[in-house]
């Protein structure tokens, strides 16, 4: 039974839900009023207590991240709203921007207040032109109503928000690639540490948060940390926007509590698979997550910890469903090609390895498979992303986690559907 009531998307079907007057009619900006009377540290503490974890991919504790902003620094602080949304299978931030832009903006102002920021940026992917235009209106409305600018709502607090358009590069969703891009350079991720909270935009302390993460904040302030923590698993609670696409009858964005079962998402919310075909495999958390086989997918809760235990990750919660007719070698090539195209080219294993994967998989598909190709695919994947233990947060051989983001899915395709890859190797027998 489903008793959960959507939080972030409750009003998205209503007329003019993107306008300020609508947002105010449902209690919009009351959380901001409350926050402006609070000590910024208490705001951070409340968010920490809520156990909110980032919705952009890595799932890091939001309150804890804010806590890394140095208290003694007299440099300006920056808050950046990551609206780059370019992880294949993910399309929730676009919905939030179109339907609830003021909820997101209120979240931004709350976060900016908590970290002491007076200039904040929305880094939006360049292709989202319509959303960019809409956000311009949202921001203008906010300035006209003293929700942005000098002395917000009569307080001592002032904030400017600037929209910055990307220009077509997946890697600019990675927070340090984003910072380079914002500084007017190619989006080459930086070596960490220093982390952005210490040295980010223009060497100043910077927090990067995802659109959905920020959109949760007004609700946490209004209803309290313990309410938030009571939704789903305590270590990673809250409402979550699950995006379902691929081979399903009713693709879309579905808001559910964290920890919902993947089976329910696919077969109930998304209406199952067209023509009653069988499920074959699923990306649970965007194309950077290891795929799950049908059996694995039928028995998993969409929770940070549980997916790590199953050798994958919740990532951006972008669920891509593949039915029995999907050729796994072709699908693997499609994903490898994406990463080869999007590699920023900075690290040799990633730049060279991704092109190698594409060349090899293309050769296999064109009938040129050779003995030893399977081992070679594993070797290339491991050279890019290594065998890492994500739960320990260890990252391997490249400057940014893009390396793992390629290696994981590719490795999982070959490992879990080895038979299909071996059918492309005429000389080798298929072992069961």
């Amino acid at each position, binding site marked *: 039974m489903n008793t959960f009531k959507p939080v972030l998307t409750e009003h998205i079907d209503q007329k003019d839900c993107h306008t300020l007057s609508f947002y105010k009619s449902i209690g919009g900006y009351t959380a901001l009023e409350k926050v402006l009377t609070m000590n910024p540290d208490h705001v951070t503490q409340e968010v920490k207590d809520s156990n909110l974890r980032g919705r952009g991919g890595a799932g890091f504790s939001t309150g804890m991240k804010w806590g890394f902003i140095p208290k003694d620094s007299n440099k*300006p602080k920056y808050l950046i709203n990551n609206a780059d*949304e*370019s*992880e*294949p*299978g*993910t*399309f929730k*931030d*676009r919905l939030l921007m179109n339907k609830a832009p003021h909820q997101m903006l209120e979240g931004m102002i709350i976060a900016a207040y908590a970290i002491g920021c007076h*200039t904040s940026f929305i880094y939006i*992917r*360049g*292709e*989202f*032109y*319509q959303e960019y235009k809409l956000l311009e209106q949202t921001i203008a409305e906010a300035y006209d109503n003293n929700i942005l600018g000098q002395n917000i709502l009569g307080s001592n607090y002032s904030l*400017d928000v*600037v929209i*910055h*358009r*990307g*220009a*077509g*590069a*997946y890697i600019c969703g990675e927070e340090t690639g984003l910072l380079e*891009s*914002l*500084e*007017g*350079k*190619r*989006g080459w991720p930086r070596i960490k540490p220093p982390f952005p909270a210490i040295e980010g935009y*223009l060497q100043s302390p910077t927090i990067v948060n995802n659109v959905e993460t920020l959109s949760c904040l007004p609700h946490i302030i209004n209803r309290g940390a313990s309410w938030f923590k009571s939704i789903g698993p305590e270590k990673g609670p809250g409402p979550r926007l699950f*995006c*379902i*696409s*691929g*081979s399903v009858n009713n*693709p*879309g*964005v579905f808001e559910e509590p964290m920890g919902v079962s993947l089976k329910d998402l696919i077969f109930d919310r998304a209406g199952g698979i067209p023509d009653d075909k069988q499920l074959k495999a699923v990306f649970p958390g965007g*194309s950077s997550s290891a795929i799950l086989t049908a059996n694995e997918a039928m028995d998993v809760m969409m929770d940070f910890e549980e997916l790590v235990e199953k050798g994958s990750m919740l990532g951006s919660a*972008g669920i*891509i469903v*593949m039915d029995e007719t*999907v050729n796994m070698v072709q*699908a693997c090539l*499609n*994903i490898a090609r*994406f990463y080869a*195209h*999007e590699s*920023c080219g900075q690290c040799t294993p990633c730049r060279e390895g991704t092109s190698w994967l594409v060349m090899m998989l293309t050769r296999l598909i064109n009938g040129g498979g050779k003995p030893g190709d399977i081992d070679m695919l594993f070797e290339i994947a491991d050279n890019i992303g290594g065998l890492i233990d994500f739960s320990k947060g260890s990252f391997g051989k490249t400057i940014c986690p893009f390396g793992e983001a390629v290696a994981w899915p590719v490795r999982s395709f070959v490992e879990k559907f080895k038979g299909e890859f071996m059918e492309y190797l005429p000389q080798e027998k298929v072992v069961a």
Partner: protein
Amino acid sequence: MKSNGKPKPRFTFEDPERVEQIFSQYPDKKSATLPLLHLAQSQEGYISNSVIDSIAELVDCHPAVVMDCVSFYTMFYTKPHGRNIIQICQTLSCSLNGADELVDHVTDKYKIKPGETTADDQFTLMKVECLGSCGTAPVVQMNKEYHESLTKQKFDELLAEFE
């Protein structure tokens, strides 16, 4: 200035106020590079060397730095394209929902392969990566606008609007 060549036509922004406004939004000049490139491209259709020189001068850096930036991003074009750019998403969810057929369809219909422009300059075809709208696959971006859940028939109707 060389005596043998013609002087290069200098690029200037049509809307200097917008340029000022962009600069006023950032704490440093170089951060204005991307927005200026977008603005220049919307004026000229692509980023010429002359655009690069002007922006370098405005943001106070060597043209090579701006060039480096331009070359990194797929949305900045360094040469002119057709009047309408058809961008078909080819990533997994779109591919599973018929994107490849849409590419073939354009190729059959206008005799252009991805990356090519029709002889009358009306269309340029491009294959692009995930447009962040996979729930309404297949997705085609026509110039600035998204067209979602496309069938071949809906796609034809769309193309007809631009013919």
